[in-house]
Structures are given as C-alpha cells and as structure tokens.
C-alpha cells in the first residue's frame, strides 16, 4: 500500500490511483489503473476493447471483457484509451458488465474520434466490389459539385 510515486522512465506509466491526482504535472495523461479501458493491438483478440482489472507484474495485466475469459496480457499488447470505469480489483463478470453499462463505455468509444475511425476502417474493408464502384461514382459526383462551387467563387473573385 505504498504511496511512493516513482518518477517513471518513459516505458511504464503505472501509478497508484490515490496519489496520481496529487502529482505534479506529468507528461502522461493515460495511466494503467484498475478500470482503464484498453484496445488490444496484437494477437488473437486484436481490435477488442478490454478492461484492466489487475496488474500481475511490471509487464503484465489481468484483463477482462464481457465477451472473453479473463486472462493476462502483456502491456505491449494494449493501447490505453481515455476511458476508465469504476470497479473493484478483479470484479465478477456481472459487476464488470454493470460498471461498463454505467460508464457507457460502448457509446463513449463509438463517439470518440479514435473509435469512429476504426468503425470507418472496418466498413471500408468490408466493401463489396459493387460497393466500391458505387463509392467511386459518389466521390466523382461530390467532387463535381465542389468544383462547380469553386468555379463559381473563382469567377466572382476574378470579376
């Protein structure tokens, strides 16, 4: 239960939740803490949002999500997000799900710019050949409208 804050080297940003609010200005904004929502960036669960429910050691965290079995993951496989939820250490699945609902993780994620980007990427990757054709036509149409407006403005400016 030590509240000693070690000015951390660039790698790990582990800190005790009680003290981090009292620290002087730190270059880090997202900390590994119990309740931190993270995105898995490598491995079988690639692309999933998981919650850090405990820290195993310097390199690993115990990680849980509503649709997966709770297990350990190296921090290197996780990218921290801005979202945190309020949970006790290693909560039961039911408590975890309730806490995620309460904090509205899904909606916060999908409305964040990072979350929206991922959704667009997924949609683009799943496009059919016909869809890509329709997309091309739509892009041409849109640029046509833009060019018309631009031409109008140019004309007004020139005169």
């Amino acid at each position, binding site marked *: 239960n030590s509240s000693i804050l070690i000015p951390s080297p660039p790698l790990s940003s582990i800190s005790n939740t009680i003290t981090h609010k009292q620290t002087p200005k730190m270059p880090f904004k997202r900390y590994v803490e119990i309740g931190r929502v993270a995105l898995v960036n490598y491995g079988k669960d690639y692309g999933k949002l998981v919650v850090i429910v405990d820290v195993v050691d310097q390199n690993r965290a115990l990680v849980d999500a509503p649709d997966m079995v709770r297990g350990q993951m190296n921090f290197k496989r996780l990218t921290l997000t801005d979202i945190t939820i309020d949970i006790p250490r290693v909560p039961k699945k039911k408590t975890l799900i309730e806490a995620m609902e309460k904090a509205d993780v899904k909606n916060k994620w999908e409305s964040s710019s990072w979350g929206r980007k991922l959704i667009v990427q997924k949609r683009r*990757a*799943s*496009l*059919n*050949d*016909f869809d890509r*054709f*329709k997309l091309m*036509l739509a892009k041409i149409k849109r640029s046509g409208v833009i060019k018309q407006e631009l031409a109008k403005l140019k004309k007004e400016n020139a005169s």
Partner: protein
Amino acid sequence: MAAKRKTPVKTRNPDLIRGVGKYSRSKMYHKRGLWAIKAKHGGVFPRHDPKPKAPVAPEKAPKFYPAEDVKKPLLNKRKPKPTKLRASITPGTVLILLAGRFMGKRVVFLKQLTSGLLLVTGPFKINGVPLRRLNQSYVIATSTKVDISGVNVEKFDDKYFAKEVEKKKKGEGEFFEAEKEDKKTLPDEKKEDQKAVDASLIKSIEGVVNLKAYLAARFSLKSGMKPHELVF
C-alpha cells in the same frame, strides 16, 4: 444361374454387430420359407437342371505367334468426376473475368454446362460479352447477384458452342490460290438466342441502381488495392 430379381432382397436378418446376425440358422430357415417351398415340392427342394449350353466352337490355334511376349496394358476403369462448382458461384452471380479477350469485364453467370465450363453472358448490349463458355479457374466470383428467374437457358449446352466443321476439298490448286474466305458471320439464330436471353436479364439489371454502369465498366487493380485483402 437362376433368374435375377429386379430389386435385390432386403436382408431379413438384421446385424446385431458386424458379423453377428439376430436370428440363428434354424430361425432363418423358417423365415425364408424354405419349409414352404419344400412342402410345395413334396419334401424335396426343387432342382433345376442346368440349361444345355450352346456348343462352343473349338478354339483354333492362332496363325501367328509374336517372337517376344506382348504385354497387355493395365485396365483403366477411371471415370472423371464432374467439375465441382465453387460455392460462391450461383446462377445470377456477377463474375469478373481474369483472362482472355474480355479480361476485366464483369459478366453474369447463367449455368454450368455438362463439360464443367460456365455459361455466361454480358449481357451483350451492356458490355459486349456474348453467350460464352468460361473456365471457373479464370474467374473471380463477386457477391453481387442478379435476378435470373426470367431467363431460359435449357437449350444451351456444349454442342451449341462446337466449332463448325469445314469440309476440305483435296486439290493442289488450294495451296496456290490465296484463299479468300468470307468473314465468318454469326448465324441469325445465335443472334436471336442472345437477344432472348438478354431481354429479361437487362430488365432485372435496370431494376438495381448503378448495376448497368457497373457491368459496363471493367475491373482493374488500382494503387493501394491488395487483392488478398479485398472482399469481392
């Protein structure tokens, strides 16, 4: 041999496990009704004398024996199986041709012929591809489907597409004369067939927005497109 039954007899002795029947020999004797057959023929099982065989002509010794023993080739009973059609190709699927004169064209699949080749049409008015046969190895199947219910493809088979045999006259003059053959024009019957098939197809194509333009355009790989990551 006794006359063969038209349908093989279903065995009256079910297997308990392989090699062991449910009924014993005496039970089976009773089940088969052999006692009834015997009773009908006065206690004796009916016996048919073998039919008199037709007299076989005595085999003559061959006139000629080869000096070395001639080997007989091994018997080959292999029957080639019909080509398996990819699950993604169903009647009405839009296919992308990968090779040949119409490389890159998007085309509508009609049916698989008995030879295994795919029967396909442009439709001709939309992209210039006529009724044609293709090998499914040279084709990408997209997941876009066209409604093909109004099309009758019964009359098309491999014989329809066979090349017409030209009769050659043997003559020396042929080699010296510059033979001017008439350009082979399509018989009107085939043109009519094409129109008939395409008529209902074009109607269902025009029902979907942009589908006509899609079929008229050719497919090509652009910069940044990774074929192994593309969803067709």
